[in-house]
């Protein structure tokens, strides 16, 4: 057991934990941040995606010891106050969620993508999103949401 300090959604949090415990478990069980989902525990579905120092990572494969002193952003940390981000709004407007269980991971990934590449091509979007599974198979609406978010950021930047 050791103590780990993580900045989660701009808040300094810490927990006592075995070093190899997955970040996903710590977020959900110690910090009460249940928005990040478990889907496979082996890096195959990316439902558990969070930002670690702004990079999208599978939290199920990340031991808590790896994020000591780093910053983590989860789905709960994207909207400020009640203001949804463009990606979140686009996921509503283009009806991206069926059951919605994969949605948090998809939104976090798309957020990171649009930050490093505000005008991604269709193929760049597919590259970023392909590791994510949606078993409701709402892929087309999810794709449309990411494209809508990219277009709306462009519009607001102009």
């Amino acid at each position: 057991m050791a103590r780990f300090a993580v900045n989660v959604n701009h808040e300094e949090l810490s927990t006592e934990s075995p070093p190899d415990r997955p970040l996903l478990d710590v977020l959900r069980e110690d910090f009460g941040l249940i928005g990040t989902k478990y889907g496979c525990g082996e890096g195959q579905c990316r439902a558990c995606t969070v930002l670690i120092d702004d990079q999208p990572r599978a939290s199920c494969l990340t031991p808590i010891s790896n994020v000591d002193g780093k910053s983590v952003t989860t789905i709960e940390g994207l909207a400020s106050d009640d203001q949804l981000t463009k990606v979140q709004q686009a996921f509503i407007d283009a009806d991206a969620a069926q059951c919605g269980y994969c949605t948090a991971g998809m939104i976090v990934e798309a957020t990171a993508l649009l930050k490093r590449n505000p005008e991604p091509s269709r193929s760049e979007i597919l590259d970023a999103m392909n590791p994510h599974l949606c078993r409701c198979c709402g892929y087309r609406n999810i794709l449309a949401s990411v494209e809508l978010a990219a277009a709306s950021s462009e519009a607001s930047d102009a």
Partner: protein
Amino acid sequence: MPERFREDLFEPDRKELSESPAYRFDLDRRQWIAIAGAGLLVTAAGRVVFSPGVAGAEIPPSTRLHLGEDGSITVLTGKVEVGQGSRTEILQAAAEELRVAPEALRVMLADTAVTPDDGSTAGSRTTPSTVPVVRRTCAAAREMLVRAAAETWNLNASQLRVESGAVVHADKRLAYADLARSKRLTSADDDSAPKGVPLTEIDDWTILGRALLKTKAREIVTGAHRYPSDIVRPNMLYGAVLRPPSYGAQLESVDLTHGEELGAVAIRDGGFVGCAAKTSYEARNAVKAIGKSAKWRIAPHPSSEGLGAYLKGRAQISGGGRRGPRRREHGDVDSVLAAAKTLKASYEIPFVQHAPMEPRAAVAEWDERNLTVWTGTQRPFGVREQLMEAFRLTAEQARVIVPDTGGGFGGKHTGEVAIEAARLAKAAGKPVSLCWTREEEFAWAYFRPAAAFEVRAGLSGEKIVAWDFTAYNPGTAGIETPYAVPNVRTQYFPCDSPLREGSYRGIGATGNNFAREVFMDELAGAAGLDPLEFRLANHNDERLTNVLRAAADRFGWSPGQSAGQNRGTGIAAGFEKGSYIAICAQVRDEGERIEVERLVSAFECGAIINPRNLQAQVEGCVIQGLGAAMSEEIRFEGGQLLNGSFSQYPVPRFRDIPPMETVLLDRPDIESAGAGETPIIAVAPALANAVFAATGQRMRSLPLRLHAA
């Protein structure tokens, strides 16, 4: 008057799952006697303005409506939301009949303590059965409100209007909340609801028929929605369960102290062994430690190689009952076949796993003898019964709440995780959350049945004159041909299955329609007709013609077409649960693999209730069908799955989705049917037929694979 929905088309599939409990625990005698002797039952509920169905058949007891004095309006049904859109659809139906904005309403689903028993959320029943009941209930409530207002104002009810949550006359207004408080309406509490109140005509729909967005979308995109696996209770522990090393293995002995030493609560009850601890990490480690000490008696178990022959060898030929064999026959199949030009073929489909993104999960909490379980299931009342049986509880003592769940696809009808969580919570004396791992969900949930088929048919010119269809184990949905054939024999034999089986999107119709629609292609070839023309020539169902033509037109289908080198096009159709699908596919032969280049679907399920949700359901269903057609297949040997993970069991991903088009045909003159299942049944045969066109190889089993050259 819209064409009535035909109940007879809805015989439940014989593989539709209703299983007995997975465990039976020893009776806790002391508690049992205390409960059996206790006679006090307290029922606390909101003020139910009226409870339909109590007094008669006009409104069956499957929907409740609560009008609060505070102005809140709540619709309660026992249906669940697993991503198919039931919540939004029910909201639209209620808002339409109550003449209120959808935002003014709350829909409460699947809590056995407060919502009525609406059976299971299966068989595409929500749209044809629940929506009309919601509408009748709300229309009756509207009528009661109008009558109460009329009485208050001493006017004739026909002089009043209803708009935006109030009854109105000239400049007078009475809000529903005011009426809910009035003595007049309270006095109607125990009366039967008004009978035969007309439902809103489809031409007057303002909320039904609209592309309303999902009502919980905001909670979903902010991560606020709590799925069953996200429920947290005070002092809650996390659970884990010891699984056998192989199917059929029996536990002989185990040493729990290895788990207790790690600080976990460890329990064994019959074949059940599990742990609960402060974190799921600790619980899993405790189970691992205990598992090392476990001794198992291993049982022999077959392999997925040669599964078709295995099933045929274990067919239940005789006997009856709801789950037994079935045979239907008309005309004189044998003598017509003997005289006609005949063709025959065999087909096979493997087991597939639903693999919903959220694996099974439950949180269980005991309060003395009362048990509450939050869990993701499509059968809340069925799971309550399983809990009652496992723990010897009365219906009042067991409560099942189903938060909107992360996917089902027919795969969450059972209550094993609820029972396990409850057993752990009982042992721990604290609430326990149990979330199955993906590995567990693959291995220990149930599967879409594997099946084999033998089909024979006789041709006379371009007509099918005899049809002889034998299905081993797929289930009975979609087993009867929608084509017009004078002599038909359909036989269904359930088989002794090596794996647990149950519902799935379309269940039996997936295999039955695959075998039939590929065989239709083979027959078209033998008759020398284009596959589309052959289908059109062999039925007289206008709705089937419409979807076939719509898909073909959009696709640009033309007889004798050539899609080019190594390319092929295929078509297939199907009818099931009141809705029609036709799909055209184009594929390319890549030598090693088949590339799907295009899918065009046409779907018709009567009057469209929400075009946006319908589009999502049809597309999602078609893509799930693409997975089952191209890659999904459960393999096993020695009692173990060989591919029980997402790395080894490939399901469709973003890059697998071909260009797709979906044509939705609206039929306002026909009552709405569901849409979450039927689209899947035409995907695999359309692709199989396209592969034949591209390669000349007949595809008679799934997933589709080119034979070695």
